[in-house]
């Protein structure tokens, strides 16, 4: 089963993708690693793959998570932070 989620890109990721956000269809049950791979492959984010963290609905995920996604969930591609 697949579902439509919203990807949101920031900083370097946004510049590479050239967009702030995109709706894509992904498996609704998916491991963090597979989701990251899907996003990296599809949007040519290989250069920054190792420094990206994904957030689902504004919560940081960990690499060992299995995600259960629903339609409209917001997945953020978070490069290294540099606020402050």
């Amino acid at each position: 089963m697949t579902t439509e989620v919203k990807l949101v890109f920031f900083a370097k990721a946004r510049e590479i993708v050239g967009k702030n956000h995109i709706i894509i269809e992904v498996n609704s049950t998916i491991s963090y690693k597979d989701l990251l791979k899907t996003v990296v492959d599809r949007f040519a984010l290989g250069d920054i793959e190792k420094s990206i963290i994904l957030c689902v609905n504004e919560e940081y995920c960990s690499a060992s998570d299995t995600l259960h996604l629903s339609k409209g969930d917001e997945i953020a591609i978070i490069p290294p932070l540099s606020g402050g």
Partner: protein
Amino acid sequence: MEFLKLTYDKLSVEAISDLVANPTCGAISIFIGTTRDSFEGKTVVNLEYEVYETMAIKSLKAICSEIRNQWPNVCNIAIYHRLGVVPVKEASIVIAISSPHRGDAMSAVQWCIDNVKKSVPIWKKEIYTDETESWKENKE
């Protein structure tokens, strides 16, 4: 009380300090992060901040809750972060915390800036005179 703001306007240290002042509090501790004019020998001409706004506000609220856990005597907390272009020497962040005695406010501010840098989704890009640019990464 808590005062959290992400704004494209210049930050006023005076106004933020006044926000947290309280007649029962003898101490206000403030941290100001200002933009620097150079990085590894390159001159910074311009500097821009970008935010994941809804999540940033959520993280700032979580930081405030944790401050209240760790320093129950803290009175008011203000965390203001500037966005967009920030000229060199101006403040990108102002954190102000008041407490009856100074130890609490000072430790809380220190913990606060460490954790803002660690967990709040905000990004800074530096643009140099040689027209190169670079997204920064917090290390400290």
